[in-house]
């Protein structure tokens, strides 16, 4: 598979009066064609800012200070505003968590879809036809009527679908989905997850899925990177992550979830609190909360090391973590509720 | 448990230059109003036929008016009256209006409806017109200026506080207070009031200026302070006829009004910052 996007050592900092918040502190990953790549982490982990950096959507006082974002060979970081606009919403699209605030309340849905056709030479008829097709594609019933409606006339799930339609209007090769299902009810979340999976296959698209929900990652992603305090601490394919994680944070996160799949050993919370990004701990940012921490962890930030083909971990204590068992119980297969 | 923000030594809002300037102006104004006798050497109401319409000099810093009175002394002595009008005409509406807004916003229902209709009707008329009407009915004089402003001035406070109450009424900590079995009085005074009063407090700064100007306007129109009591508006009124040849009679009271007004406005800005950051 070819590499669609290459992010190298991305650093996005927020420069405030008295402090510097290191939201993204040296992040590197590749996105291949036709894959779903997950970025998982809690609030403050840097996952959203990483996604926004890719499309140069970081708000002041945030700034991309370092790194390369190579899309089809060209570096997005170095592009001028015109060039970025040529990519944003056209070749790389993004959908957000809150469709109500992402959709324009005063424009009809069809006009918002039309915005994606700005640089094309489509006639009005063609644009309307394509818009109806898009709404059909995302599963909105009576699309002919609904393109004439406004955002507030749609329910939560429908709005999210409309936003997906707008994002896909220009047939992007990469879709970034920033917490697309977090604000939705469970049954609607299921529908949207299905929809995204189907669309990805139909349109041969790649997708970066950002979420804090490990279960969503498990259901949707091919590969995943776990972020903490602005850096990637573990990156591998999904099955490996959930069967044999190697970073103490990944493992601790799984152990702290009250999900039905964990054999009832009782919840094990992660002690302490997430770090202050303006005042990170020395060495490994996770060491104050880590059960395995040793002296070296307090002093030196570990490098991201490839322990196996495609499995990278950032930890000094890998010898201790080889016993971690993930959330998949062997034998693999029967889980949770019976069919 | 770790806590992130440390207590700062001098809050940022207090170090802003605009706030400091405002404080200085107000302090000066207050000092002048308390001790005019040490600053002005002439009797502000004593007529002196030998010194009519003198231009500013080292002897008469602001010149003299058509009665030979030292304008500087008159302006200095006015400060007390104008400041009094500004402050005392503001306080009563602030208290009354806030209480009304608090109660009607919290309880809603018929009282709220009636209140809103009253406010809508009264606010359809320009403030100054209402004041003039009331003074015409009650008669001239400083006392009636106060009463007129009190009758009309509580409206914006009620509106401001009520608006905030409607927002905070449904805040979870208010629900918590209800669930905790606190009396309505306690909830209103201890929990709602501190959180809804900010816009009203900020408005008092502008209101002081407004009241001062209203007092001055009424005096200017001859409806307020009666001669020979010195008051900025009154002095302005008297100086009108002499603008061409004795500009100092109108200029200096106007200048003092403007500076005092600016002082209160800057104070108000500082208050906004203070109230916004308290407890955060």
């Amino acid at each position, binding site marked *: 598979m070819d590499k669609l996007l290459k992010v190298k050592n991305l650093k996005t900092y927020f420069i405030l009066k008295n402090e510097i918040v290191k939201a993204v502190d040296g992040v590197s990953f590749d996105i291949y064609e036709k894959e779903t790549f997950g970025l998982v982490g809690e609030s403050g982990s840097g996952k959203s800012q990483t996604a926004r950096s890719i499309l140069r959507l970081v708000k002041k006082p945030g700034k991309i200070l370092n790194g390369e974002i190579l899309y089809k060979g060209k570096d997005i970081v170095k592009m001028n505003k015109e060039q970025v606009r040529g990519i944003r919403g056209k070749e790389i699209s993004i959908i957000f968590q809150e469709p109500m605030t992402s959709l324009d309340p005063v424009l009809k849905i069809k006009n918002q879809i039309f915005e994606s056709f700005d640089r094309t030479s489509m006639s009005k008829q063609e644009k309307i036809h394509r818009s109806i097709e898009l709404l059909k594609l995302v599963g909105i019933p009576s699309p002919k009527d609904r393109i004439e409606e406004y955002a507030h006339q749609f329910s*939560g799930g429908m709005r999210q679908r409309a936003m997906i339609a707008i994002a896909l209007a220009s047939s992007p090769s990469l879709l970034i989905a920033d917490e697309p299902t977090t604000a939705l009810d469970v*049954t609607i979340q*299921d529908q949207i997850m299905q929809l995204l999976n189907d669309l990805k296959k139909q349109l041969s698209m790649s997708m970066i899925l950002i979420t804090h929900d490990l279960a969503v990652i498990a259901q949707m992603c091919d590969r995943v990177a776990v972020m903490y305090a602005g850096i990637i601490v573990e990156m591998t394919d999904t099955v490996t992550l959930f069967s044999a994680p190697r970073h103490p944070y990944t493992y601790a996160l799984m152990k702290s979830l*009250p*999900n039905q799949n964990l054999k009832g050993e009782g919840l094990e919370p992660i002690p302490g609190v997430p770090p202050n990004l303006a005042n990170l701990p020395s060495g490994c940012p996770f060491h104050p909360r880590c059960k395995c921490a040793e002296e070296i962890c307090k002093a030196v930030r570990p490098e991201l090391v490839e322990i196996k083909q495609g499995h990278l971990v950032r930890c000094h204590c890998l010898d201790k973590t080889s016993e971690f068992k993930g959330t*998949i119980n062997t034998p693999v297969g029967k889980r949770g*509720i*019976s069919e | 448990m770790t806590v992130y923000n440390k207590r700062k030594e001098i809050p940022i809002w207090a170090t802003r230059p605009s706030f400091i300037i405002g404080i200085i102006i107000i302090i000066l104004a207050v000092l002048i109003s308390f001790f005019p006798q040490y600053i002005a050497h002439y009797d502000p109401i004593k007529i002196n036929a030998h010194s009519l319409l003198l231009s500013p000099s080292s002897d008469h810093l602001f010149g003299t008016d058509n009665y030979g009175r030292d304008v500087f002394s008159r302006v200095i002595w006015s400060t007390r009256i104008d400041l009094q009008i500004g402050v005392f005409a503001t306080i009563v509406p602030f208290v009354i209006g806030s209480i009304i807004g608090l109660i009607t916003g919290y309880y809603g229902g018929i009282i709220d409806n009636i209140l809103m209709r009253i406010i809508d009707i009264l606010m359809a008329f320009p403030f100054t017109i209402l004041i003039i009407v009331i003074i015409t009915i009650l008669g001239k004089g400083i006392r009636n200026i106060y009463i007129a402003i009190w009758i009309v001035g509580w409206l914006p406070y009620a509106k401001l506080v009520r608006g905030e109450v409607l927002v905070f009424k449904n805040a*979870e900590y208010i629900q*918590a207070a209800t669930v905790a079995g606190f009396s309505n009085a306690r909830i209103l005074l201890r929990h709602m009031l501190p959180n809804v009063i900010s816009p009203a407090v900020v408005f008092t700064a502008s209101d002081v200026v407004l009241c001062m100007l209203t007092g001055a306007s009424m005096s200017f129109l001859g409806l307020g302070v009666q001669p020979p009591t010195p008051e900025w508006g009154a002095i302005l009124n008297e100086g009108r006829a002499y603008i061409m040849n004795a500009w100092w009679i109108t200029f200096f009271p106007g200048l003092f009004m403007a500076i005092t007004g600016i002082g209160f406005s800057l104070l108000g800005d500082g208050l906004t910052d203070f109230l916004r950051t308290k407890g955060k």
Partner: protein
Amino acid sequence: MNNLNPSKSSNNNKVVEVKNLSKWFPLKYGITDVIARKPRKYVKAVNNVTLGIYKGENLGLVGESGCGKSTLARNIVRLYEPTKGKVILNGTDITNMKGAKLRKIRPTMQMIFQDPYSSLNPRMSVYEVISEMLAVHNMVEKSNVPNRVKELLEMSGLSMEIADRFPGEFSGGQRQRIGIARALALEPEIIIADEPVSALDASIQAQIINLLDDLQKRLGLTILFISHDLGVIRYITNRVAVMYLGSIVELGKTKDVFEKPCHPYTLALTKAAPSLDPTNRKRGYTIKGEIPSPINMPNGCKFHNRCRYCKDICKTEEPKYIQVSKNRYVSCHFPLK
């Protein structure tokens, strides 16, 4: 988990009893509507709910947005007055209680709220928040207040050092702990927790869940735990009630309800919740459609237009809430299994 057997159905064992409770919120009805003789419209948030909460149990209330779980909780705690039906607290009918009488019994039932950022008065220090609770209800001698505040804070995993700080200086998890300390100050018998961990990060959720579990055991509390997160409900509750559009569609022991659901909606919910196993991606059946509006509810069974087992009777007749086995209630014409 509590070992208390909730099947003891003697009334003496119920802390709270809700009987046929409905709560309807009227929509704006202006003069033009009166003239045009338009019928009054209501948001029917809660419809004919009957529920008993037994002493010492952790009862879960689960459902998606608009199901009425929060409204039901607020009716129980008398933040609202029910439109119809009864709320009975320890044998006393509190449905229409008002004023001083109501304030007197309020300490028995306290609440923990969802949003850690608006559940604490931003202008009161932690000490003031908790000491006020103690003072208003005379929980301890005046001289003992500081000690008791310290106790309550420590019970919630906080130290007295933070007592002079204001809520704005704390993280979400810490604020929830303060909220818990506040709720415990009045020594309630029952605590209603309205989505207490939904707004928190995953690593902090576990801390708070454990804290609540621990406190329940130590203090013998009864808890009504409201959440939309099935995983949390499954972990912490003994029994669970599933709500849809203002009614309870299923009630029973948590393990049973989730492993062998009787109501098609419960089944759909459990299927929809994503599993942590990436090798198990067989979706099976995904429920279609969206939740109808509580203003214009469907006829018959409210779930019928999304139910794969819908038959004719479901479209016209509302199913009764019946007991299908020991401690198991369902509202469905054709309960599963």
